[in-house]
């Protein structure tokens, strides 16, 4: 499984030295490391043995897989991704059924305690039959694979926080990896889907230094989830000036004004979309004219309507307010009546 080095592998795929160094520089900076470490990253990465990776897709839509493997075409990121020894991923691998399962078991046995486990999709805790792979339910498969893993990467918001399967009413009892596994280091790479470069950067750091990145309170790499979309959004100056689009086709929208009023979740969403962007750095949702939906945050599907401004609250219904008015009026009338009675009594005395 650790047959050739990453450097040898990349050279065999026709990657030039210049491209390789450019990737190392970008990855070093993206990880929040000093740029002076680039030569060390390059040297370590070139010599690193390809680590074994086992990827378990559970209750997911394959969007995370699409994002990582298809979004940029044959870029250095995808080549680096291929440079790991991906020993099991039932969507991508040619083998299926018992043959695939035997490959997984063999890879786990050969690399016990050393392999990286990538999980995408949430894990149903209800009926084990809700989601199975080759007859194995997701929960027992995760526990078995996690036992021998050096670390786990929870890829996408479903694996990191429960995601859409975990949204109300959560019929399958879907939970995140961290809800079930407590004794292994877990990196949450959230997003629906996550940004490809984030996963490759995490893998690169692991391959290069043998360490996992510094994480935030939600277990996400700080280098990518340290700031909100809003903090780095190119439309932020319009927010500062109070210039907002009122609808998706008004003058404000055409002028590229802030989408806060249209429900943008940028201020409460921590991700690197505004800086790293998507489709090979082309743009990100806000640049395409739609507000951020906060997909990298826990419970994003249940956090109110996507088109309600963040400042609006669930302040109650007209009925609640009406009841409050009725109760307040009754109390006021009653207290005034009591005061009048006291006045009369005092005058009588």
């Amino acid at each position, binding site marked *: 499984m650790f047959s050739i080095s990453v450097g040898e592998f990349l050279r065999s795929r026709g990657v030039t030295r210049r491209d390789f160094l450019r990737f190392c520089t970008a990855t070093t900076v993206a990880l929040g490391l000093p740029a002076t470490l680039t030569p060390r990253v390059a040297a370590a990465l070139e010599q690193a043995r390809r680590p074994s990776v086992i990827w378990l897709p559970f209750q997911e839509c394959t969007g995370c897989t699409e994002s990582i493997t298809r979004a940029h075409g044959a870029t250095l990121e995808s080549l680096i991704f291929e440079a790991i020894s991906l020993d099991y991923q039932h969507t991508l691998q040619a083998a299926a059924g018992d043959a695939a399962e035997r490959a997984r078991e063999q890879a786990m046995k050969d690399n016990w305690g050393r392999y990286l486990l990538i999980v995408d999709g949430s894990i149903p805790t209800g009926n084990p039959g809700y989601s199975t792979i080759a007859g194995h339910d997701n929960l027992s498969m995760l526990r078995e694979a996690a036992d021998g893993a050096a670390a786990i990467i929870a890829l996408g918001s479903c694996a990191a926080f429960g995601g859409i399967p975990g949204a109300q009413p959560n019929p399958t009892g879907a939970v995140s990896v961290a809800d079930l596994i407590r004794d292994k280091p877990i990196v949450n790479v959230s997003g629906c889907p996550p940004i490809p470069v984030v996963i490759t950067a995490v893998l690169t750091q692991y391959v290069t230094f043998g360490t996992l990145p510094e994480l935030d309170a939600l277990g996400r790499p700080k280098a990518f989830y340290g700031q*909100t979309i*809003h*903090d780095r959004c190119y439309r932020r100056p319009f*927010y*500062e*000036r*109070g210039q*907002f689009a009122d609808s998706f086709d008004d003058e404000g929208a055409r002028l590229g004004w802030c989408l*806060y*009023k249209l429900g943008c979740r940028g*201020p*409460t969403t*921590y991700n690197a979309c505004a800086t790293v962007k998507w489709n090979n750095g082309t743009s990100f949702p806000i640049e395409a004219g739609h507000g951020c939906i906060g997909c990298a945050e826990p*419970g994003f599907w249940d*956090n109110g309507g996507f088109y*309600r*401004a*963040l*400042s*609006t*609250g*669930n*302040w*109650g*219904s*007209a009925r*609640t*307010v009406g*009841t*409050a*008015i009725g*109760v*307040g*009026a009754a*109390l*006021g*009338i009653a*207290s*005034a*009546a009591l*005061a*009048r009675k006291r*006045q*009369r009594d005092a005058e009588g005395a």
Partner: protein
Amino acid sequence: MTLLEFARGPALQWSITIFIVGVLWRLLGIVLLRTKKDLSEPRNPAAWKGLRLIALRSWPRREFLGGTAFGEVMGYAFHIGFLLTLFFYAPHVLFFADVSRGLIGTDLQGLTGFAWPMLPNGIVTLLAAISIAALVAVLVHRIVNPVKRLISNFDDYFSWFVTVTPLVTGLAAFAHFAGWPYERLLAYHLLSVELLLVWFPFGKLMHAFTIFAARGATGLIFERRGASL
């Protein structure tokens, strides 16, 4: 349920309910009180002219200017800053529009055709900072001045606290204070506003509803009795 969900959900609903109940309770309790019939001959039959007192008391009297100027200036600085921040900061305007849509099915623009104007964030930030500075100044004055200190009670200090807190937390949320997560700062801001709403009807903040009516009533009595306004 996260802190923000709690702040913008149950806490907001309860605080608004308590605010409405409390304000109506106190207002009706005052308005419906029995007033003694004044049997004396009015010195001035046009007693309604006493309503001038509402405006007259909003401006310092020349002879007392030396003693009241500080309070007047700070009072205006705080109130103008606070009200403009409250009603013309973009997210606040959106909040009120949402409340309006929930209550009557439309917002001001839908109702009148006129959009509710918003102030640029830079100006609102400055106004909020001025309000906070004025509040700090009047608190220091209250503590330093022996007479004011003597007549101050818990109500004065707590009302000051619940008034300044939303301004401070609002500024903190706007400035992403200390790199704290925005949703945490927003939750603190909402909770501080909710504390203000809950305390409002039961403390001296209630003057917002009673001050002009009280001045008017006093002016009517003074005018009837021929007192100088």
